[in-house]
């Protein structure tokens, strides 16, 4: 897939809570083909301590408005600077990067998309694409408390939404892996992105129940397009780059 380096225009920058914000970016020319699970490398201007680009998942692609959405959590100077971008500003992106999630074989497959924290980002676009193709999705979303459960109305457009919070303020109390859904239903495929302990727990559940499972990794990256070999994960094929062979991996390939 062809990669592009281009300037996109910020059309909206909406704070969702004190940590998260949603950035909407409009492209001048028609957006290229973008697959669910792919990401962009974002150039952060006016942040002297941010030297490298920042990898951010494509949260959603709005073809009607020719916009892409980025859901971002403020964790350091780079993401803090991005949170301050006002509409009209230009943001330089290299995109689309990486591979994508795999469509299930059967149309009646029971699907589970699990997102924790900012890991819900790629799940919205993936859920929307699955729904558009006629698949039925269950979303399981985990957060520390109710205020960390984001974009629920968006997710509800594409399937059933289930939640867990660590403090019990919304949905079931605990971590996603403890949700009753996992006991009550049988799934044909599970897709997950979030903190590594969460993904490992979900992958463990999938392996125990012999369910097809893909995880989306967030290794630190220098380039994002296969040139530096800094982002590797250990697989059954040895060290491979998360930015080109991933970020989506079938759990049977990973040496977790």
């Amino acid at each position, binding site marked *: 897939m*062809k*990669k*592009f*380096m281009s300037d996109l225009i910020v059309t909206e920058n909406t704070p969702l809570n004190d940590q998260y914000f949603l950035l909407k970016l409009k492209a001048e020319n028609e957006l290229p083909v973008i697959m669910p699970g792919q990401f962009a490398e974002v*150039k952060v201007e006016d942040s002297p*301590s941010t*030297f*490298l*680009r920042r990898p951010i998942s494509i949260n959603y692609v709005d073809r009607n408005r020719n916009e892409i959405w980025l859901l971002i959590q403020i964790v350091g100077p780079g993401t803090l600077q991005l949170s301050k971008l006002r509409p009209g500003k230009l943001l330089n992106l*290299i995109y689309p990067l990486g591979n994508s999630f795999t469509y299930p074989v059967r149309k009646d497959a029971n699907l589970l998309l699990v997102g924790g924290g900012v890991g819900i980002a790629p799940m919205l676009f993936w859920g929307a694409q699955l729904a558009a193709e006629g698949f039925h999705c269950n979303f399981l979303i985990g957060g520390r408390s109710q205020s960390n459960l984001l974009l629920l109305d968006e997710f509800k457009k594409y399937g059933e939404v289930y939640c867990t919070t660590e403090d019990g303020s919304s949905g079931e109390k605990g971590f996603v892996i403890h949700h009753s859904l996992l006991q009550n239903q049988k799934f044909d495929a599970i897709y997950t992105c979030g903190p590594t302990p969460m993904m490992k727990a979900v992958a463990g559940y999938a392996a125990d129940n012999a369910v097809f499972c893909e995880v989306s990794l967030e*290794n*630190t*990256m*220098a*380039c*994002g*397009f*296969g*040139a*530096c*070999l*800094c*982002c*590797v*994960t*250990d697989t059954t094929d*040895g*060290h491979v780059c998360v930015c080109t062979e991933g970020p989506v991996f079938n759990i049977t390939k990973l040496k977790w």
Partner: protein
Amino acid sequence: MVDLKVNLGTLQLKNPVMTASGTFGYGTEYYDFFDVSRIGGIVVKGTTLRDRQGNKYPRMAETPSGMLNAVGLQNKGVNYFAEKIYPTLLDLDTSIFVNVSGSTVEEYVETAEIINELDHIPGIELNISCPNVKEGGMTFGTSCPSAAQVVKEVRRVYKKELMVKLSPNVTSISDIALAVEAEGADSVSLINTLLGMAIDSETRKPLLSTVTGGLSGPAVKPVALRMVWQVAQAVKIPVVGMGGIMTAADAIEFLLAGAAAIQIGTANFIDPTAPVKVLEGIEAYMLRHKINRVTDLIGALEI
């Protein structure tokens, strides 16, 4: 039209802009961004006799105006390169160098012998300066006798442009440059990364799996510039300069310090079109200063 051609020992480059090993893949990673044939040369990834998996993750840490890496020469080995990758590079109209590394002198020699047979590879860059491997690599490049020995043995079997890449992690880089020149190096390139480290104060842990790694980017530029200047004064063979070049102005500084050509490394990660921007910037500078031949800039520092 300005004349951008430069001579590197036995070889002429169409312009002085090259890309640095380990930052430009095999060139193919950049095809979507610009026509790679426009630049003077590319140096492909560090290549060893046998397949290497490299170091464990994490291998990278961002630092002020730079980055540390500890990739550790991950590559599929020279035979894989010759059979699988080399054929895909034949259509490129630029000088392709293979960066050669090894744990023993024999490994360097065997790898160089295999690459000597590849018609479209006009030169190798002998990497005696990789700080990220346990054996070989930098240990060859940090003493004059061992640097001289590996160059001498490779020179016996390698018939084309032999460029030797020097380590900045030494007391006198000029002495090492003189030692490899005496054994028949056609040119020297510098600098490889500076040994450094980074710590996470919260977790009390190093940020790299190997604890130490190689520093690159603008943070190293003043050191690189000084070393290029010193080496260019010491040796007669051409010097290829690199270390933190992000813009055409940076590149011109290296030419003025005495570099016959320059390499762009870390900048490629942030702006994959950096090599063409630097090239166009050099042309614009020459027009602005009414300089017809880029060679007139080499070593033109006025003190």
